């Protein structure tokens, strides 16, 4: 059932992306609304699949594919919530294919391996992966918004604002998405780091074991702490905030995934 729901969600995301693309090519605003509806349906289906997976014993979230699938779901859900407040419908053409890739990757790996390597540490691993993945997903959304902001900013500065293949949201909307994603994503990442330390403590008896993953994650968190402070306390300009979101997320990916691969 979990496998079928994952596949079904992947199919809906894919169709949503295609319909969104068609709505821009024609152009047809009604098709755009259909694409948003399909994305919402895909998220419901994806959520159900994830709920069923979550109820499995032991919860297999420490698997990379499951984490990616979860991140895609969190990112998609966050986008859908923002869509209620801002003119972001044009971005379904980007968000739906990304959600598709996330869930498709997970569907290929099903059934997951589970968390056999960290047995006996209670619910800390589960909480750590859940919160960190959610934080990572939202900081990824901030990065995407930052990237689109920089593209749109460049286009406006070069006085060619109408020559754009994709109707990007306004700079203000992209900046708000960036700020909201950072405002929610950074606390989630913080709690994720703390639960990670609790997990380590449950396994080794110490909060800090000095592994490369721990060290780089702590550095990445510190980088984000500085970026968040600059953003919210020092009233950083929107372009600098966008650059920070892109640079910060690149560093975070390196710290969380790159270091794992390299080490």
């Amino acid at each position, binding site marked *: 059932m979990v496998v079928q729901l994952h596949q079904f969600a992947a199919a809906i995301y894919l169709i949503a992306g295609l319909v969104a693309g068609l709505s821009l090519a024609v152009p047809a605003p009604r098709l755009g609304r259909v694409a948003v509806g399909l994305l919402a349906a895909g998220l419901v289906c994806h959520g159900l699949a994830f709920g069923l997976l979550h109820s499995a014993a032991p919860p297999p979230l420490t698997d990379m594919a499951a984490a990616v699938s979860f991140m895609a779901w969190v990112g998609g859900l966050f986008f859908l919530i923002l869509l209620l407040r801002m*003119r972001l419908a044009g971005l379904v053409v980007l968000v739906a294919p990304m959600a598709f890739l996330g869930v498709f990757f997970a569907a290929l790996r099903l059934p997951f391996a589970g968390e056999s390597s960290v047995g006996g540490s209670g619910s800390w691993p589960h909480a750590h992966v859940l919160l960190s993945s959610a934080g990572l997903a939202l900081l990824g959304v901030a990065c995407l918004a930052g990237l689109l902001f920089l593209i749109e900013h460049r286009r*406006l*500065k070069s006085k060619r*604002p*109408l020559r754009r293949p994709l109707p990007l949201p*306004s700079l203000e909307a992209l900046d708000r998405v960036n700020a909201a994603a950072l405002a929610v994503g950074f606390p989630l990442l913080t709690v994720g780091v703390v639960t990670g330390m609790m997990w380590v403590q449950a396994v080794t008896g110490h909060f800090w074991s000095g592994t490369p993953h721990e060290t780089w994650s702590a550095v990445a968190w510190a980088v984000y702490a500085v970026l968040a402070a600059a953003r919210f306390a020092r009233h950083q300009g*929107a*372009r600098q905030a966008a650059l920070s979101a892109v640079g910060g997320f690149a560093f975070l990916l390196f710290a969380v995934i790159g270091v794992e691969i390299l080490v």
Partner: protein
Amino acid sequence: MKIVLVGMSHRSAPLEVRERLAQEDPAPALQKLVACAEIDEAVLLSTCNRVEVVALTRNLEAARHRLRSFFRRDLAADEGLSRDVAEHLYVHTGAEAMRHVMRVASALDSMVIGEPQILGQTKDAYRTAVECGACGPILGRLFQHAFATAKRVRSETRVAERPVSVARVAVDLARQIFEDFGNKRALLIGAGEMIETALAALRGAGLESICVANRTPERAAELAARFGATAHGLDELAALLPGADMVLTSIGGDRPILTPELVSRALHERRNRPIFVIDIAVPRNADPEIDRLDNVYLYDIDDLGAVASQNAEQRRRETIRAEAIVVEQQQRFDGWFAALRAVPTIRHLRARAEAIREREVERALARADAGGMARDAVEALSRSIVNKLLHAPVSRLRREAEREEGMAYLEAARVLFDLDEDAEAPGDDSADGPDGE
């Protein structure tokens, strides 16, 4: 008589050059121009997108030369600009010049095709020329035709149905920067027609908080009262700028009023929230350097034009219809103008015929008084009149018929005297008379 037009527009010259030629009061320059012997009539049109002179002359080459030097020496203030001006000038003569005037008045040559302001600006230019005695009956007629053309273009095509004004383009651009206008504030600097149009467009787009700042606060107050905005003097600019998300400026003056220092300070005060500056003034009100500031998006009149031209393709079909109207109107005027050229010739011809008639009547009466028969006298009179009238044209026809190119004269004679109706008539023989006399 020839019509000649010399000028530069957004199509031929960058804003840096145009803004230094713009004339707030064209009357003195115009009076100086018509004082020249080569120029009989002239109209000077100076807007933010073009500076053009239309003139009527009897010596085309001399007038062309005079108008070029008028731009280089009288309108351009310094040597460097004078060189730039020469590079960017265009010259239209005859039908091309007539068509250009009509296209300009109909907003077909505008940066934003179909925009409504240019017709008013052309009417103002015409009125100024009439008031300072530079525009006479012929250019007057041309401009009346141009206004009629503009009226037809507006009523018979859809070029101006959804007018894409500069203000509208500015609002579209603002939507790419700001998510909603409800909580935004616009600061409009100036109180002219452009600002009024922008005010209406911004209100229509849902912007509620608008301030109008002007050198003459009374004019700002009058405009602000009509649109529910607040009025301020220009001295309040530094205080108003930090609160403004959008600044639209169109006010006269040689120096920029929005300097990098002023805008940086405002940005700092507004905690780096972006400012969209639309500068539709010529000369520019905003120092181009402010575009280097990170959270400032500056669009001048040329930038807005470039944006508007991206929409041009959509309006192409309507523009083709409008161009057809322009050609039709130009041909009508050209017909009138050509007929005007024949007037002195016709008058001369009539005078000569009248002189012949009077002389021959005198001779006939003298002959009758001397005791000649009345019939013989009348016969001799009529023959003499016919011979004298036809002498010059027939002699010329004989001479020209010997040359290959002279056939045109024969053709013209057949048309003028309507001889094709009576091709076989023995009229040719009678032509021998005067020649033989």
